[in-house]
């Protein structure tokens, strides 16, 4: 378990990050989910507000500070 924690700390050493893939978006360290619909998602991060637009959004994972969405992403805005 000690090894697992060490690896996790090494991989998640940032306060927050946003990883965008072809059909997925991985968000870590957000504070609050403002909206989560099939075509739009808004999340509050410590320093900005993220707005994602697209189609057929599907939540694959949702935990306290981690979100993985599958879908076609067309637009991202940092407000």
């Amino acid at each position, binding site marked *: 378990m000690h090894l697992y924690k060490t690896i996790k700390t090494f991989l998640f050493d940032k306060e927050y990050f946003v990883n965008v893939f072809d059909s997925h978006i991985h968000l870590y360290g957000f504070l*609050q*989910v403002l*909206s*989560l*619909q099939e075509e739009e998602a808004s999340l509050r991060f410590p320093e900005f507000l993220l707005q994602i637009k697209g189609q057929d959004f*599907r*939540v*694959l*994972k*949702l*935990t*306290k500070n981690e979100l993985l969405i599958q879908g076609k992403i067309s637009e991202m805005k940092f407000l």
Partner: protein
Amino acid sequence: MKKSYALVKVDCSNKERFLKSCQKNKLDIYDTKSKDREWIIKINEEDLPKLKRIWYVEYEVVGYTGFHQVKKQLKKNRVFLICAFIGILFLFFLSHLVLSVEVIHSSSDIRNLVLNALEEKGIKKYSFQKSYQELEQIKKEILDAYENRLEWMEIENSGMKVKVRVEERKLQEETKKKESCHLIAKKDGMIKSISYTAGEALVKRNDYVKKGDILVSGIIHKEDEEKGVVCAKGEVLAEVWYQASLTLPMTYKEKIRTGKKRWNMKIKNNAINDFLFKSRIENFEEESKPLLKILNTQILFVTQYEIEEEEKKYTEEEAMEKVLQMIDEKFATILNEKEEILSKKVLKKEENNGIMNVEVFVSVKEEISMTQEFQRIKGDENGDAF
């Protein structure tokens, strides 16, 4: 590590609200599948009570994955698993059990000796089979213990039976006793080949000998002077003649398969050898394949081929061929590798009431020598007095 997940069917119209509530209640979602209003979500089994706090959704647990699922499947199939486990144990037990010990030897003394020795070493009926290394060790110990009686031994686990092949040690006493002997002819014949390792040959190739004639003498001469007496050893092959009378019925029944076949099962052991189902064909030939073997009982899969018997008659040529074939078969059982049929000649043949009587002259090359002891009497140089 024993993490298990629950698959929950959630009925909610506002998914966004539900997801926000999940996050607020620290309820982690690992996968989702949606179908209209219904949603199947994958959550930690421990988080199920948290779902109750979200009052506006109706939910139903539809399944589990992970450790809980494995546990549930094991519990559901426990009777089968226990039976399978007991079955495997029983099979292991049976496959390592000795039901009989068979010593392969013609002498009952040797058989009893080996059986007693094996019993002392723990190889007996209803005992457990020994490993290869243990068998080798036991074999060595028995051979050491009975070195004057046993020449060679092999112990083999064959199914639930222990097979022991053993060779008796024959001491040279018998040979030692025979200090003076001749090789004499046991049949009339013409010498074809002669080879000897001890003694002095009195006949040569193409010599005609009669029964009782000395072939290889045990008395050794050197320049007409007797030098010593030995037990003559050797091999003398001679042409020997036989006159054989055979009768052959001119008609015979030939079995012809009609092409119709049926399947059946057969149970076979020491006491029973019978079909499991009623045979649907009256006259048949069968071919069987082993299907299952439990202890001494075998279950066989049998194919029955319907046959019809057709009466046929030999032509004269076929009858002669058959007679000569019968002679070959008869001699094949009594001749060894070095011996052979040299020629066959039909002397007389006559057909009477559907039976062929044939007289055949057969010339055979065979071993004709046999050992005969003699005792020397003073003044008898030929050693003819026995």
